[in-house]
């Protein structure tokens, strides 16, 4: 073939599809939101850029070696592949790929050998995804770093606020039901596992959402992660109206008693206690909460500062980079441009809203039942979205009463929400898988 024709055929212009163009626009929108509007930039910059890379036409950066071979391979290779997979020559690429996925190990090994001999390796983003997300490692390592950055002090000073973190998880399960209702009425097409993964958006916790959907609904991972991080950034817009609607001015103005100081020993024992409880009651949450507790213990024990420092700096940064690019690899037209994505985006915001509402309502109930005053606004921080939701609670509280500093009080339910959604994740994985 003439080189100029080879170059043209290999160029992106000759291969670009409408779907790719749309996905490139969406990726650019995510970058805009991250950079100009400060929407969770640490995740959305890598995710958006990963989305751009995944949609480079003709590069197949998000595809496996076998998928790249069917996309880019010459007729000779495709014929050999068809022969090994026992199908007529000239079958379309996606038929070959799906046959390969169902083939027995030895046929797969033969296909792998052919593909490798023809010079096709996994796409860069595909490799990143396999190593970081499919293995489950990246969300866990990030959770370790988050643990090393988490201060359980306010929670230990006022353990009742754990219940606010529990109540706010109602958003998760209500959303599961919503997703299933949409399927029931034929509007969308979600399985129980899909619905469970979508619900976790309501946990307002990125690594948890990615971990769960990598297990329960890998195909929806892109949309779920994008929804989770976008709505976390929108917490200052989503939450205040709900908080106002469900509380009176007087309740919002309630001042809370100053928190007691917490000893170092309590801080050290708490992650161990939490881990043991997880071990006894909900082993399926052990990877997530185990790494979280490990990070926190390293931080609080004070004798391994080198390690906790690395866990919440170099290691979490490296992992975030590759996690973000890997999530971006799921921003491809055939998985993202789907009516289900609209459903996920819609359900996600509902999940946040219901979680906020149930946290606030639980706050009101606790305020009535308790002898010491509890400002129901801090219940909204129970969705997690650390520390954004706690800041929102503080701001709304200050509007009602300029002496009312809720920030530290809201940090309790805020970190409780992280535990709560990890527990919910464990339940989902145990019951649904």
């Amino acid at each position: 073939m003439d080189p100029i024709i080879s170059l043209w055929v290999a160029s992106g212009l000759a291969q670009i599809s409408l779907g790719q163009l749309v996905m490139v626009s969406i990726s650019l929108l995510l970058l805009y939101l991250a950079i100009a509007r400060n929407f969770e930039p640490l995740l959305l910059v890598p995710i958006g850029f990963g989305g751009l890379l995944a949609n480079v036409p003709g590069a197949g950066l998000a595809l496996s070696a076998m998928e790249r071979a069917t996309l880019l391979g010459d007729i000779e290779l495709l014929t050999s592949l068809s022969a090994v997979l026992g199908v007529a020559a000239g079958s379309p690429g996606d038929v070959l790929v799906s046959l390969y996925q169902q083939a027995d190990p030895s046929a797969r090994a033969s296909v792998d050998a052919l593909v490798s001999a023809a010079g096709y390796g996994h796409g860069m983003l595909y490799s990143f995804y396999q190593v970081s997300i499919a293995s489950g490692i990246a969300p866990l390592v990030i959770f370790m770093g988050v643990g090393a950055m988490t201060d359980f002090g306010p929670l230990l000073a006022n353990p009742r606020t754990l219940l606010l973190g529990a109540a706010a998880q109602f958003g998760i399960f209500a959303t599961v039901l919503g997703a299933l209702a949409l399927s029931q009425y034929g509007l969308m097409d979600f399985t129980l596992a899909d619905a469970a993964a979508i619900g976790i958006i309501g946990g307002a916790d990125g690594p948890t959402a990615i971990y769960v959907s990598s297990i329960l609904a890998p195909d929806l991972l892109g949309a779920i992660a994008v929804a989770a991080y976008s709505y976390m950034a929108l917490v200052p817009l989503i939450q205040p109206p709900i908080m106002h609607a469900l509380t009176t001015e007087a309740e919002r103005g309630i001042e809370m008693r100053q928190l007691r100081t917490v000893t170092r020993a309590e801080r050290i024992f708490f992650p161990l206690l939490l881990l043991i409880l997880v071990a006894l009651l909900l082993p399926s949450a052990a990877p997530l909460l185990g790494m979280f507790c490990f990070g926190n213990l390293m931080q609080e024990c004070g004798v391994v500062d080198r390690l906790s420092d690395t866990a919440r700096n170099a290691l979490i940064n490296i992992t975030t980079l590759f996690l973000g690019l890997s999530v971006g690899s799921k921003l491809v037209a055939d998985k993202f441009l789907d009516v289900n994505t609209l459903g996920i985006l819609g359900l996600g915001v509902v999940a946040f809203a219901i979680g906020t509402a149930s946290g606030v309502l639980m706050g009101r109930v606790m305020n009535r039942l308790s002898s010491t005053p509890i400002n129901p606004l801090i219940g909204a921080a129970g969705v997690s979205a650390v520390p954004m939701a706690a800041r929102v609670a503080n701001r709304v509280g200050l509007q009602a009463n300029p002496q009312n500093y809720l920030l530290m009080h809201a940090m309790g339910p805020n970190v409780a929400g992280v535990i709560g959604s990890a527990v919910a994740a464990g339940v989902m994985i145990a019951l649904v898988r």
Partner: protein
Amino acid sequence: MTQSLMTQGLELMLYGMGSVLVFLSLLVVLTRLMSALVGQTSTELSATEPQATPANREVDPRTLAAITAAIHLHRRSSES
């Protein structure tokens, strides 16, 4: 076995939300218990606190350089 999707979802909600509430309620109780117990035994642990680990005893050489440079620069600027 052949429950509708909605029934499964309702069950998931019931047992899921129940588990979350039970788990975190237990955690409230156990945390209080732990705090009560640890309050008395924590003297021993806090006794070891002032012993810095090797890791945080080291000062970053660049930071040291920065201190030196800052002092040096300042002296020169205050001399002139």
